[in-house]
């Protein structure tokens, strides 16, 4: 493995729920090398998604630092984080989160609206991304006309269209049947191995985690490492 793409040092995340103080992550240290395919497992409420949110600049730690690609996210303003996310990170959600009013093609083009590409260039790049996930023939279809697996493929195409170094996947196969889930996981493997994407995937599913190069377990806000399958 090469140098670190992401590094978390002494990261804590505390939420205040009424008078109750809930510590979701406790002084957590983590290094993610460039090109890694990391699976994060753990029970519900263990802090997996919070960890993913911190890596993606969607949330800020209450203690410690989060550095990704040389940028220290914890000290950035909201607008700086927005700009950083648009170029450095792609997100894949459990329920796809495609915009129902847009076609697959237009959904994939969404992140490119934040660039200076012309309409033609945006369309070309979205077509390439759809081709990578094997959905060129579904470009004009709206999400409701696609199967769950196809929707997730479109979501992956949207995540990679702006060519980010880091892909963050939150339960990407949680809403899919076994066969479709395996297709998605193989696609993620290809993106990792052939396209050099660093992938961090949160999952409940041990079989899904087997597709990763290594697996970390989070429990009660702390990390424990186990050997990769």
């Amino acid at each position, binding site marked *: 493995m090469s140098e670190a793409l992401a590094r978390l040092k002494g990261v804590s995340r505390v939420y205040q729920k009424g008078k109750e103080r809930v510590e979701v992550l406790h002084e957590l240290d983590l290094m993610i090398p460039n090109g890694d395919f990391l699976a994060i497992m753990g029970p519900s409420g263990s802090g997996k998604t919070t960890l993913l949110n911190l890596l993606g600049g969607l949330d800020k730690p209450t203690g410690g630092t989060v550095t990704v690609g040389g940028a220290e996210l914890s000290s950035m303003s909201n607008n700086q984080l927005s700009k950083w996310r*648009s170029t450095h990170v792609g997100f894949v959600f459990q329920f796809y989160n495609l915009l129902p009013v847009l076609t697959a093609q237009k959904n994939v083009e969404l992140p490119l609206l934040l660039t200076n590409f012309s309409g033609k260039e945006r369309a070309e790049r979205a077509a390439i991304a759809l081709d990578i996930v094997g959905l060129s023939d579904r470009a004009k279809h709206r999400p409701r006309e696609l199967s769950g697996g196809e929707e997730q493929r479109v979501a992956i195409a949207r995540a990679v269209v702006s060519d980010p170094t880091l892909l963050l996947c939150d339960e990407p196969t949680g809403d899919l049947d076994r066969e479709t889930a395996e297709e998605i996981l193989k696609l993620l493997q290809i993106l990792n191995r052939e396209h050099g994407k660093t992938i961090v995937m949160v999952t409940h599913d041990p079989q899904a985690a087997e597709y990763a190069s290594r697996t970390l377990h989070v429990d009660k806000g702390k990390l424990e490492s186990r050997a990769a399958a």
Partner: protein
Amino acid sequence: MKYFGLIWRNVWRKKIRTSLTILSVLVAFLLFALLNALGQAMSGGGAMTGAVRLVVIDKVSLINFLPLSHKNKIAQIPGVAVVSQQSWFGGFYQDPKNQFPQFPVVPDEYFALYPEFVMPEEQMEAWKNNRTGAVIGRDLAELYGLKVGDRIPIQSTIFTRKEGGRTWEFDIEGIFDTTDPKGGTALLLFRHDYFAEANTFGDGFVGWYTLRLAEGADPVEVANAIDLQFANSPNETETSTEAAFAASFAKQFGNIALIVTMILGAVFFTLLLVAGNTMSQSVRERIAELAVLKTLGFKDGTVLGIVLTESVLIMAMGGLLGVALGWLAGLAIGSAMAMFVPGGIVVSTEIVLLAVALMIGAGVLAGIFPALKAMRLSIVDALARG
């Protein structure tokens, strides 16, 4: 512009809801354009530049009569080519809903005042030879199927005949047309001498005077000279343009400007509630989608702008359609009310610009709270809620 496709599709996310909202905006702006144009038509005309006719009324109120003795004095004022008297007869034909203007006039003088009205010479002669004769405009003749030779009863709401009763019968001796393409001819003219003789009151008095200016006469100077002539007399005058006269006439029905303002105030208040509710619902049902946009890197300000633009776009679509329909309605109504609003009911550039400003303002007002909600939403919380 690159966000327009996204905004446009979001606007039409719920087609029925958006269509109904646009319809309510359309009605509001139709009323806005039409009522403002009507208000302008009835309150405008203050400027005398370019006026060819002036109207002399009682200084206190249009409903006060002026003495017939004013006529010769006005005629002698330099710059006055023709002057003649008119009065509001206030009658109806067969049914109270069949109302149209009727004026007792002096035939030759009236047609000299209004050269745009044309009628065959033999019909004019026949009218002048029959004291109970009347002439009607082509519009009126077509409206009620009247023709030369008919005898038409007019029930006056103001004047009683010396012989008793308020039903005045006239022989139609002529039908006149107009050369003014914007002018209407839905009116009846009968002879002032017959009116003065048969009427129970008001002999020696008239409603107002209309005068035609001589070539090159300055309307302001003539108006001032007339009013000065009767200053400090028991019947002081106020001389103005025909449009200003129409405004005075309209004021008899109430304060048009205030009525317009109150109606529009109520309409726009309701409109803001309707459009605001539409935008609130629209944002509420796509919290997760807005969170996804922010996740992808859309800045808070961009999300705010997208939601606000959706709101303004809905307002603009309904508003522009409404103003266009208001313009068409103004043309139609103006033509039908040409006697009261000689300049027509025109949706002016000023009204259109005001309407556009209102569309933007109302769009921002209706969308600002949902837009702020969208802007401030926490990505983590919104995604967790799904």
